[in-house]
Structure formats: C-alpha cells, structure tokens
C-alpha cells in the first residue's frame, strides 16, 4: 500500500512526485475508472467519483490517488487537488474505519447534538476529528444531514443513527470498537469506510439485503401519512423518540401543549406540576 505525507495536498513547497499504484492495483482501478468515465458525456465529470474511488482504495485521498485521477482524466495535479480540497468528504489524512459524525447544526445541536458530541469526546478521549488509538473510530461534527425530524442525528459511515442520546451514542462507539455488529435506524449494516467510499464512487452495494435493510420509511417520515389515514387518531400520534412505542401502536393519549401563547412551567412557576401530570398520564 502506498503512503504519502499530508504535505502532498498542501500548497507551497513542490512535493516529490507521488509513487504509482502497484501494477495489479492500477489495473483494477483502471477498469473501474473506465466504467465510471463512460457514464458521462465529458470525462472530467468523473472526477468526483474517481476521488471517491481512490478514497475507497486507501481510506483517504493521497497524492498517489490524485495522480491517478489526473492521469486518467488528462488533468494537471493542481486541477485535481483544487477539487479534492474543496469538498469535505475527501479525507486528507488516514482516519478510522468508522467515521462517527454528530450533527451539530442548529436544530440537532439544540435538541442534544452538542451534548452528544461532548460526551463522545470525553468518553473516547479524542478531540474533534480525532481517531481512537485502535484506529477504529473517528469522531467529528457534521452539518445538517437532512434528517432534522429524527434529531439528534449521528451518522456512522454515512448511515443514519436517528434519535440519539449521549448514552446511546457512547454504546454505539463502544460496540464499533469491540467489533460488535451495529444496525443503523435507516440504512444497511455497517461496512467499512472504504467500502462506503466505493458505493459513493458509483458501484452499487454488492451485499445481499443491503437495499432492503431497515425497511421502508423511518417512523417520522410516516407520521403525516398515518394521521391522514386516521390511523393514529387525530392529534394523538406518539413521538418516534419513544423508541419502544412506535407511532400508532400506543393507545390514544392526551393532546400535548398547545402552540398558542400559554403558561408553561417556566412562565408559570406556581404550577410547575402541570406538565408533569400530563407527562405521567401517557
């Protein structure tokens, strides 16, 4: 396996020419690349897929990988590295087998994403973008991943782990480090980061059952539909966050607080018990 220093991506000092892939690796990548390039009217369009492909080969984008992209597409090294450094999904240094991304964009952060990220940093003893000593887990914060109705959201190798808490996230990384199988709430049983990168390059997941895994839509995606079908009882659906009571399976409960102006435990300190008794009735 080739290894190149991080400086290869940097600007400034000209880097030494990157070593080539060994001949057998090169032949395999050439065949893959030809398949990807053929999907586009203009070969350069295959650059993002090819960068995913070389990331699948080595776990991050190396100088060797960029050189391969440049040679395949007839681009300069500078053209390729300008692109590779623009996009956040291309890693520029070796990282863990499992990339654990905690969403800390506003909505998830407020609902608990910040607390989850803090808990993971403390639990694993690594900082943001840090990798555990065993090389298994890299923790980072990520931006909104289009799953806000499942907040707080954690992604592992870009599979969804919805409705997380600090405790569930700590269990998750412990399982990953111990090699125990973990299943996303939406997505397929985890493969390694490199295998994930190959899917991103454009090669369908070869594992039987991967497409079907975790079933149809997630619970939050179905809430409106169930209401519209009268299944959950008007205004009485159950939060998907209560994991042991999927929507529609719990008996009708109280309607919760109105959205309109009203007193709350914060604004109405004389009646702190209000929400408590309601909560208890569920």
């Amino acid at each position, binding site marked *: 396996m080739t290894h190149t220093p991080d400086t290869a991506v940097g600007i400034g000092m000209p880097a030494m020419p990157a070593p080539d892939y060994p001949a057998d690796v090169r032949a395999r990548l050439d065949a893959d690349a030809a398949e990807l390039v053929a999907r586009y009217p203009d070969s350069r369009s295959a650059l993002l897929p090819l960068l995913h492909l070389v990331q699948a080969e080595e776990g991050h984008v190396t100088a060797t990988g960029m050189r391969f992209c440049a040679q395949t597409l007839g681009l300069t090294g500078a053209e390729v590295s300008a692109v590779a450094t623009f996009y956040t999904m291309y890693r520029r240094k070796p990282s863990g087998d499992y990339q654990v991304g905690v969403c800390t964009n506003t909505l998830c952060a407020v609902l608990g994403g910040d607390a989850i990220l803090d808990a993971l940093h403390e639990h694993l003893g690594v900082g943001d973008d840090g990798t555990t000593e065993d090389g298994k887990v890299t923790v980072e914060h990520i931006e909104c991943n289009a799953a806000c109705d499942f907040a707080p959201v954690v992604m592992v190798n870009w599979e969804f782990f919805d409705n997380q808490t600090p405790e569930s996230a700590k269990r998750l990384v412990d399982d990953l480090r111990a090699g125990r199988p973990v299943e996303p709430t939406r997505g397929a049983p985890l493969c390694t980061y490199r295998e994930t990168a190959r899917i991103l390059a454009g090669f369908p997941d070869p594992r039987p059952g991967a497409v079907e895994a975790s079933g149809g839509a997630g619970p939050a995606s179905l809430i409106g539909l169930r209401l519209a079908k009268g299944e959950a009882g008007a205004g009485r659906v159950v939060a998907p966050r209560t994991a042991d009571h999927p929507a529609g399976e719990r008996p009708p409960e109280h309607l919760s607080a*109105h959205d309109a102006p009203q007193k709350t435990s914060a604004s109405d300190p004389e009646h702190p018990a209000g929400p408590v008794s309601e909560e208890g009735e569920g």
Partner: protein
Amino acid sequence: MSVVTESTEPAEPDGPSGPGGPQTSPEKLLSPVLSAFWDEPESWTLETYQRHDGYQGMRTALAMPPDDVIALVKDSGLRGRGGAGFPTGMKWQFIPQGDGKPHYLVVNADESEPGTCKDIPLLFANPHSLIEGMIIACHAIRSSHAFIYLRGEVVPVLRRLHHAVAEAYAAGYLGKDIAGSGFDLDITVHAGAGAYICGEETALLDSLEGRRGQPRLRPPFPAVAGLYACPTVVNNVESIASVPAILHRGKDWFRSMGSEKSPGFTLYSLSGHVTNPGQYEAPLGVTLRQLLDVSGGMRTGHRLKFWTPGGSSTPMFTEEHLDVPLDYEGVGAAGSMLGTKALQCFDETTCVVRAVTRWTEFYAHESCGKCTPCREGTYWLVQLLRGIEAGKGTAEDITKLEDIADTINGKSFCALGDGAASPIFSSLKYFRDEYEAHVTGGGCPFDPALSTVWADQSPQEVNA
C-alpha cells in the same frame, strides 16, 4: 394546564381553494400523494410503485407531443420546490428547440439547507416517483441523458437510487425505446462530496463537470448554457417527483388543492421542539397552527418561540405568524420565504443567539469564497456572534452585526450570502432584547440542557 387542540365543533367545510379552518381534522387537512404509500413494507420497489399507479403518468406523457406536456405542467401551476418557487413548466419552456445541441435534465438532490429534510426521505421511500418524473421531463425538453446529483452523505438513499434506476432499466422504462415509444433516456446517478453550495444550481453544474462547486455568472442561464454549455433544466427532487401525478390525474385535480398562485400539494417537514416531528404532506397554504393542531402541538408544557418557514436561509418567524398561510405569496407577504418548507420550531428554552451563531458558522464554513462580501462578511459575523454569545460583546457589536449583514445581503454573488444575512436580520428584528441581555448580563441566560429532547424526561428538570 390542559389547553387542548381538540375541538368539539364540527370541522369547517373545505373551501375550493384550500383546507378549512383551524378545526379541520387531519384527514381533511393533509393530502398524501408523494407519501401515500410510504408505509408499505417495500415502498421503494418498482413492484410497489406500480401497484400505486406507478408509471401511468409516463404512459400518458409519452403518448403526447412534448410541447403539450410542457403546456400541461405549465397550466397545472406547479412551482419549484427547491426554494425559489419558479414555475416548473415555464422553466422547461425556456429550453431552445431545434438548436442541434444535446439537452440535459439535472435533478438537484443536494438537500443541505439547514432544517430541510424532505427530498432525502422521499428518495429513500419512493425513488421511482423521481425516475418517472424524470422520464416525463426529459420527453418534454427533448433530453436523452439526465443526472441525479445526490449529496454524498446519505448512502442509504444512494443505494435505493442505484437499485431503482437498475429496476427501471430492467423494466424497459430507461434505455432505448422506452415502453415502445421510440424515446431513449439514460440516467446517471452522481454522488456529491460534501459542499452546501453545490445545491446552488450553477455551482451544482460546475461540480457535475468535475470542478470546485462555485456559482457561475448569470446570464447565460442554464436553460441556454448549462451542463457542458448545453441547454439544461435544473429542478429539485420534489418538483420532478410531483409531475407523474399531474400527468396521471390531471391539472384540474392538482389545482383543486392549494391556491390560485400556489396550487397543489407539498411536503412540510416539522422538526424541533414539537411533539411529533416528521413529514406532513398537505395542500399549499396550510398554516403552522393547523399543522401543530393536528400533530400534537409543541412538546408538553412548552410554547413556540421562533421558527423558520423554509430552512435557515428564510427569515425566522415567531408566534405571531402561526396563521400565515404557508404558500409562496402568504409567507412572502409576511416578510419571509416559503423556501423548502422546513418548519424548524424552537421553544422558549432556546437561546436565539446560540441558534443564529450556529447557523452563521455554517454559512461561514460553506461560503465558497468566490465573492468578498460573503467570504469576509460571514467570517466577521461569526467572530462577533461568538463574542456576544460568550458575554464578551458590546452594544456596538450588535449594530456592527446589522451593518455587516447589510453589506452581504443583496451584494453577494449568489443567494448563499443573502441566506446568511436572513437569520441575523430577522432575529434582531424580533429578539434584539435577547442580544442585549447577553451583552448587559455578561453571558447567555439560557441553560442548553433544558432544550434537549431528553430534558423533560428527568424529574428535577421538569420541576425547574
């Protein structure tokens, strides 16, 4: 303490132009079309889709001359669901015909606007609605090669798209001579690599051409010089996925929902401190109050403080906007934008300065760097906001925030800059006192622990 949303009065009858009053039952308020069978065990398969009228709209369209398809979509009044609400049929009509160049359809599946979470669940549960819509759109604009630009960070969705496209080829809905019509179409699924700006349509085209995703100067518009400098339509996932039902059930059916200028159904995404976050498909023009009424309201014991009608780039609203009709005109008249219909709801435990700081950090991180007002402005906004949030700000910093936002807004190269200014302006408009409290009080008066989803599950916090 039990203000219930339940009503003992009969629901008001639905008017021809939209849902009834606030007492409407969920069955009447909501109108699942795209999401109608997401609860089927294998909703994403071709087989399930075909059991639910799948590929019927395509058959109707392929039997029509392309220009008639464009006219029908135009008459239906369908407007783009990617944020700006541009009429879809009109966009297709702009494609020059007989120009001898290839034409392209590029579907924008980059969905990265904070709060936005509709296209991803749609593609996960029902990818064939997009593929069918693409076939219809390509027939209309005379394109034989279309692309789906999917953000990379959603591998489960990528899997189902790969699978659905393969199924469609196997069924003869893609490839040569589709369903015996003589029409050919290939679809390429393309995964992005993490950059919000690639959702901006011209940056998306540069990215799809294998470059850094940076916006292009317009004109020329993509309809004239888009992908590979050829005529190109860029449409949002939901826009295209809405087309098959229009072809199959007709424009009058579509127009029976929503309003004259904003007809049809759409996905509203409710998130945040609500009892039941999720997707709610309804006619355009419902209000947040109606959606909260039928869905269980804000979480127990809390009240709405601020919300976004269509993602973080749309100016925020407060309680006073609960009855604003959520269509393009209604939200515009109230001073914001319908955007992506990402209804992020925050309750009174949430610090607005914290929320805006985090969004601004996002814009600074995602600014592509091409133009100075956005690149430099978002950086300085973050510095000021972090200072204010930490209690180290001054009264002048608040004025400075406004000045910088003003320098970015309308003076940036693309709409990302305007989006970055929106939360600043709107939060200062409604919550200036909260910024001042951070300055005078020397810090944040809020306890972030109270805003978490698990806050109310521990007894001592409920009693706080």
